[in-house]
Structures are given as structure tokens and as C-alpha cells.
């Protein structure tokens, strides 16, 4: 069975925020909630790196361990989802998550006023009938049930963000790294995409 994961290639991410926009639009995510965001380190300095971050769908997810109402679960495909009907908005998952993935529609507020937790679903909806209006309203579109991948990855212009079965992603990334080689440039086109075949000869 597939083990769904995201992989972001920091050599390729150009901080275009296309993934963020695609996610917000596809799921009609409310104001104040960003299921995905782009983090840049050393912004503006040569050698800067950007990384698109959302829920990483951890194999041993700490949010599941800390949820006091036990409404966060992992599907057979390794996607971490939650039942909004049972969420009390306590924020424990937010504190436990090393990626800051859980979001609350009412932002930083007192317990009881934050609203129900919202996070990346790997475009797999939630515990409602696949493709139903109730599922869309609570969790967003269920692209996985349509045989598609998360839109953030499919939308990525440089293919920095990959999504899917971990084994397949590893194969893609390994292939990419082998072609890329180790150039003299610290960053840039050659590092990201490798040399042209003719040029490499």
C-alpha cells in the first residue's frame, strides 16, 4: 500500500507561492487559515533556500498522540486526517506539530474561541462520504478519491514539490540528484535541473 508523502526540493523551489494559492483556491480555505506556506531561509542573500511546508503526514504523528478527543487518525495510505465534528479546538495538536500545520480559523484566541482545527488533508477530504458537499464544506475537495494528487504538487511550476507514494517519490528524487550532479554553482539553474545532455558530454 502506498505511503503518501510530500517532498520539497529546496534547490528548485522559487518561492512563487503557487502551491499556497492552489491550495487556498481548491479547498476554498477561509481567511486566516493557510494549510500550506512557503518558508524562505536567508531571504535575499545568494544561496537562499525556500521550502513549501504543510502537514507532512508523519508516520508517527504527534498530533494523533496528543489529541484529547482522539479525532485525528491516519488512513491506510498514511494520510493524517481529522474529524471536525469532534474537534474541541484545544490547540494541543498545534503545540505538538513540529511544522505548525494545524491552523485555527479564529487565529490566536482563548480556548473555546479558536474554532475547529483545519489542516492540509493531502487533498483526501475527511470522514464524510467521498465527494459529498459535507466533505467539501468541512475539509475541502477530495482529489485522491478522483485518482488525482494534491493540487499544490500538481500545480508546482518547477516540480519542486512532489506528492505521492514515498517509494515513487524517492525514485524521482534519486534520478534527479544523479542527473544534477555536484556543480561548482552553489545554487541556480544547473544545480536545480542538471546540465544539458550535449553540454555534459
Amino acid at each position: 500500500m502506498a505511503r503518501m508523502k510530500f517532498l520539497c526540493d529546496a534547490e528548485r523551489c522559487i518561492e512563487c507561492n503557487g502551491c499556497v494559492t492552489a491550495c487556498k483556491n481548491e479547498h476554498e480555505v477561509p481567511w486566516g487559515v493557510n494549510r500550506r506556506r512557503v518558508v524562505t531561509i536567508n531571504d535575499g542573500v545568494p544561496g537562499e533556500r525556500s521550502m513549501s511546508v504543510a502537514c507532512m503526514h508523519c508516520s508517527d504523528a504527534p498530533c494523533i498522540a496528543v489529541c484529547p478527543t482522539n479525532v485525528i487518525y491516519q488512513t491506510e495510505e498514511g494520510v493524517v486526517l481529522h474529524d471536525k465534528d469532534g474537534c474541541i479546538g484545544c490547540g494541543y495538536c498545534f503545540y505538538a506539530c513540529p511544522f505548525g500545520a494545524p491552523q485555527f480559523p479564529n487565529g490566536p484566541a482563548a480556548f473555546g474561541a479558536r474554532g475547529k482545527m483545519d489542516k492540509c488533508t493531502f487533498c483526501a477530504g475527511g470522514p464524510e462520504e467521498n465527494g459529498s458537499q459535507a466533505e467539501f464544506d468541512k475539509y475541502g475537495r477530495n482529489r485522491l478519491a478522483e485518482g488525482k494528487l494534491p493540487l499544490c504538487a500538481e500545480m508546482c511550476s518547477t516540480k519542486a514539490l512532489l506528492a505521492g507514494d514515498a517509494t515513487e517519490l524517492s525514485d524521482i528524487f534519486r534520478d534527479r540528484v544523479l542527473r544534477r550532479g555536484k556543480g561548482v554553482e552553489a545554487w541556480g539553474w544547473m544545480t536545480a535541473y542538471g546540465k544539458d545532455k550535449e553540454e555534459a558530454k
Partner: protein
Amino acid sequence: MTTRIPYVIAAALAAAFLAGCSEQPQVGKFEQGKYAGKADTRPWEGGTFKGDKGAWEQAQRNRVRAQNEYKRVE
């Protein structure tokens, strides 16, 4: 009769005060470590794949492999 009224009131007040000492469960009942939410349907159990897990896996595999642009352009 009138002499009993204060006793009745005192008894009623005592019962009311003592009721505050009782403890009712304040949290929902759930089993620690077990998912307590609604059951979810699997991605292939729906309109598109109609329970055909193999077809869903193949569709996913094709999509994932299509992300490798080296394979797409060569």
C-alpha cells in the same frame, strides 16, 4: 404544624447544599489511543473507482510518475 416548617426548609437547604458535593463526569467517554471520530471511506470507495482498488492504485502511480519531467520529455 408551623413548628415543622423551619425543619422542612432546613432539610431542603441541606439537600441542596449537599447536592453540590456530588461529582458528575465532566468529559466524554473515549478509549485512550483509539480513534473516536466518524468512520471514513477509502479513496477508491466512491463514484470514480467504485471500489476498484487496483484501478485507483494504477491511477495514482501514473500521476506520481508523471511528476518526473525527465521521463516525460525523453
